[in-house]
């Protein structure tokens, strides 16, 4: 359970113990660890957890120390035979004013050390258990949470959660050997997101590798990096990585349009909204509510409303991250968060470009949860490796699907060529390609495209072009007669 999943009911972060899921500032996962540690001891785990919860309230100032001691005095006696804490007989020995200033742990230590009847060793043992009970330690207070990597709910993180803390890790396997450059995926993406002319969130290169005649394609969506440079450099955390599933998204309401994400991205997948979007907001299917109102809804209610509206603009956190961006902010391929959050008619675990590719009969794009061994991309890649290992089957390739059951030939290892783009830049991309990697001297051959971008039509009637610059310059001139786009190139 990550911070993103917790309820986002207020602009202010909810105090963690108020949530049903977890009282601990570090979340349910931490709490579970604490519990299991307690269960390994001889002491009562339920009592411990209850005390820890109240300890958090104590730290937050909602319980007085006296109330806290009084409540657990009997329980403590039962559990430890004797309660060494300051509520009992020697309460007078404790300087309560002083105790208020110190952490409770210190206050307890003072008292116990003065009590010479208890052996130091025995006391320390009990104190150790007590410390674990109270959840004291480096993370005891709500404030100290801010010093950790954890960030409050209104500020997003820049990394997906660790594998056991996240629900999915969305990504793709793209089989370039199956791509024929039909650009169906490009159209599918535009239909889904209503992007403006030239903002090809999905882009397909037709290129020649140096010294070969072979025509190659490279399908280029956003790589949804696990170590995304764009999210790292964003000065306002508009560009972020959703911790529950690793999607790299832009919060259109926070983005200031500085374009540093675009500068830092090695793949050139970002498209800024330089002027008014070609597709107006009214035409996008979305829940007609102010974003802050959407966020203030309770999680279930929000999901219901978003589903009723077949919303394609908000994600399940109520953040405006899907479909084309408004004027002045950055957009790019999103991997369809509204589908992954299950409030559209489209199935979870699908993306628009994959659907279009399947429909075109190519099935080169395989989207799914890379953490799940049974997911479509993983099984596809596995199967492709097997086929590659069997020369006989490789010859037949995909002609007869039933032949797939043939046992693989005894090759020592797969010969399947796979790669990730610019992996040495340490971005940890979540797209794996099957096929040949473009060499350093590869060059795009726009004239050899089997289908031209300009020939594509889409549901919105938006023009499609490969190179946006010309269009933007034209737009600039159309808007302003005083701004001649001087065409002589410097490059």
């Amino acid at each position, binding site marked *: 359970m990550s911070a993103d999943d917790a309820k986002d009911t207020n602009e202010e972060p909810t105090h963690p113990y108020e949530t049903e899921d977890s009282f601990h500032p570090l979340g349910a996962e931490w709490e579970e660890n604490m519990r299991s540690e307690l269960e390994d001891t001889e002491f009562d785990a339920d009592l411990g957890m209850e005390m820890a919860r109240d300890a958090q309230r104590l730290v937050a100032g909602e319980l007085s120390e006296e109330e806290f001691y009084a409540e657990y005095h009997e329980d403590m006696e039962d559990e430890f035979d004797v309660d060494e804490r300051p509520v009992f007989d020697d309460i007078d020995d404790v300087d309560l004013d002083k105790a208020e200033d110190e952490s409770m742990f210190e206050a307890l230590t003072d008292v116990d050390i003065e009590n010479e009847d208890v052996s130091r060793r025995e006391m320390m043992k009990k104190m150790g258990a007590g410390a674990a009970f109270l959840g004291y330690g480096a993370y005891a207070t709500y404030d100290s949470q801010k010093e950790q990597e954890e960030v409050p709910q209104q500020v997003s993180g820049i990394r997906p959660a660790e594998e056991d803390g996240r629900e999915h890790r969305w990504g793709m396997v793209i089989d370039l050997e199956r791509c024929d450059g039909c650009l169906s995926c490009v159209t599918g993406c535009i239909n889904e997101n209503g992007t403006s002319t030239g903002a090809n969130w999905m882009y397909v290169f037709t290129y020649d590798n140096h010294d070969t005649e072979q025509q190659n394609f490279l399908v280029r969506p956003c790589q949804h990096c696990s170590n995304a440079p764009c999210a790292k450099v964003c000065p306002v955390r508009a560009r972020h990585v959703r911790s529950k599933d690793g999607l790299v998204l832009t919060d259109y309401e926070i*983005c200031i349009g500085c374009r540093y994400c675009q500068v830092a991205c*090695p793949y050139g997948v970002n498209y800024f909204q330089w002027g008014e979007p070609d597709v107006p907001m009214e035409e996008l299917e979305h829940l007609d509510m102010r974003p802050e109102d959407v966020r203030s809804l309770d999680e279930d209610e929000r999901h219901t409303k978003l589903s009723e509206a077949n919303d394609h603009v908000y994600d399940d956190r109520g953040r405006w991250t899907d479909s084309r961006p408004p004027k002045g902010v950055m957009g790019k391929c999103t991997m369809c968060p509204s589908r992954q959050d299950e409030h559209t008619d489209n199935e979870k675990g699908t993306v628009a470009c994959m659907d279009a590719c399947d429909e075109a009969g190519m099935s080169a794009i395989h989207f799914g949860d890379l953490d799940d061994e049974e997911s479509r991309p993983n099984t596809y890649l596995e199967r492709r490796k097997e086929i590659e290992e069997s020369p006989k089957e490789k010859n037949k390739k995909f002609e007869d699907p039933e032949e797939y059951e043939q046992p693989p030939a005894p090759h020592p290892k797969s010969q399947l060529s796979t790669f990730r783009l610019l992996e040495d830049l340490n971005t940890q991309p979540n797209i794996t390609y099957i096929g040949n990697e473009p060499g350093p001297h590869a060059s795009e051959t726009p004239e050899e495209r089997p289908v031209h971008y300009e020939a594509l039509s889409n549901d919105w009637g938006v023009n499609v072009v490969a190179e*946006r610059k010309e269009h933007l310059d034209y737009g600039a001139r159309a808007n302003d007669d005083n701004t001649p786009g001087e065409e002589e190139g410097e490059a």
Partner: protein
Amino acid sequence: MATKDAEAKEPEPADIIRPILNTSMKWYAAIGILSAVALAWLAAFGFQLQEGLIVTNLADWGSGGGVTWGLYIGAFIWWVGIAHGGIILSAAVRLFGMTKYQPVARMAELLTLTALSMSGLYIVVHMGRPDRLVTSVVNAYPWTVQSSPLAWDVTVITLYFVMTATYIALTLRYDTYQLRDRLPDILDPLYRVVLIGYSEKEDEVIERMAWWLALGIIVMAPLLLHGGVIPWLFSLIPSMPGWDGAIQGPQFLSIALTSALAGLIVISYTTRIAYDWEHIFTDSVIRGLTNWLGIFSLMFVWLQLQQIINGLFAAHVRPEVVMTAKLSNTIYQMAMVTMFLALAYIFAQAVKPSVFSRHLSLVAALGVLVATLSEKILFVFEGLAYPEFGLYDQVPGHYSPSLVELSSVAGTVALCTLMYMVIMKLFPIIELHSVEDHDDDHDNEEVSA
């Protein structure tokens, strides 16, 4: 020579308050023209706010075939460079007791204040949604400051603005107190604010505080200023081979000092004519500034050479592409020829004093300013035009700033000058100390020159 007589004249406190007491028609005319230029640009900026950044010739790099950062960011670096160079020079004068240049020190500080304002303005102008600047930045600041070089940048610019303003405010107190009787009554409320809590006993303390501030500025310059945070905006981005690399720190710092010195030469030349300051900004002072300009220009050219050689000889594929493109760019060639011409003059006059002329120094300074601005804009543009991911090379990429963008250069130069000219009417822009101590220092000055 006529200037010999002028140099023999002793500078007096009356000299430094002359701009405040006398205002010529030329000043009003200049203000009028500059305001017109600034207003024209503000109108263009308003147009940009209304239409969006589509009125620039910027575009998406990648399949879009343009560059997403261009003149705005280049000019931003240039202004920050002038600002940072200015405060470094002023701090050096104070720290190392370079009394000869003391009259220039406060001018350099004021240049920092005005140039830094222009760079801040460029941040706003560059943005798609400037209206969110404060709310968005403040909200996530504790986290972004850990990861985003742009957040570091905003921090450092703010820090330096505060430090410079403090520095000026502290040192102004003595001057204002001493000269108050001779300053116009109409500005009395302003002076009263400056002098809040002043007592003569504080002078020594203030002096010491200013010294420590100067030390802080000098130490932080390479670490945080134009030798650190500003180049890190680019050098930490491995996707762009034209930017990548540790040389950007020294390169940026050398450009900052070069541009600031050039700016100071322009200001001292102009004010010398306007306020008969021949005996303050003597030929000797201007010659000294010119020599310093030569040293920093040489560093600038030297670091350019380092980058080019490393990018051409047995280089990786992409760095070679960038450097080839850079070298073959006519604007870059022009900038470098300008630098060489300026250097030729500076070293010729250093070897043979009769070659020196303050007019030629002014021309050299203006040339250097144009060259550093061009280099900075090209640096931004070419970095983005030749990324590590070379498959986009066939996308026809070109960028030449639109009129809206070009007007911003004229507009900010005008605004900066306006600010400067107004400040000149409020406070002495030459420190009182530098004219008071003249008697004691005069002999040393001749020696050190």
